């Protein structure tokens, strides 16, 4: 049984896409932090818990994408060119 033929540079594209997605998620998380802090300092505590939960979800998504990057990177290095 032969290995499926993958086009060259496929791993690179996947990693670039994942990094771009992480960057977008990070911008959303940055906005979330500033909005939560601003509301908290103004004496409003309602957005504090949802803000922390959303931030944890965004971090989990970033971490998942990072694991994907690691895996794709490892596979692309192992693959003979």
């Amino acid at each position, binding site marked *: 049984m032969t290995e499926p033929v993958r086009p060259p540079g496929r791993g690179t594209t996947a990693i670039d896409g994942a990094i771009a997605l992480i960057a977008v998620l990070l911008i959303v998380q940055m906005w979330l932090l500033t909005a939560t*802090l601003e509301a908290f300092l103004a004496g409003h505590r309602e957005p504090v818990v949802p803000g*922390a939960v959303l931030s944890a979800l965004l971090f989990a998504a970033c971490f998942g994408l990072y694991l994907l990057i690691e895996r794709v990177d490892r596979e692309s290095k192992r693959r003979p060119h």
Partner: protein
Amino acid sequence: MLWKEEFSVHAAEERYVTRRQFGKFLVLTSLGMLAGNLWILARSLWHREPRLPARQVVGAGELPVGGVRVFRYPGPNDPCLLLRTAEESYVAYSQKCTHLSCAVYPATDGKRLECPCHEGYFSLEDGRVLQGPPPRPLPRILLERRDGGLWAVGVDPGTRES
């Protein structure tokens, strides 16, 4: 050259950041953001309402109907507005606009508070935003009648029913 072989530090390669390293940096930044949000959550859970002092704002009959007085509460850097809207009706709000902290003042129609910086308007009845960029209502100063005068006794940031 001999020294290059002996000290084999390649500056260009040292500065090179792999995509994996860059991804790691982004994820660590994300972890920092999460830590910030958790810090706010912890502060919120352990926060206790400060007991604000009671302070006399005006004496009996000092302010005419339709009159306005600026006072400072709870601290010396917290300007507030006291307005007498009817014979027996007073309202007081923080004078700092919730958008960018410009000073608000009564609009010419006498029914709203106006922030001149970005044309934000607040209701005179409850401080809610009527128009413009302010994201939240004006903090309301809680008033009490004591000994014939009017006293400021607390601040409602605008979330509770008043």
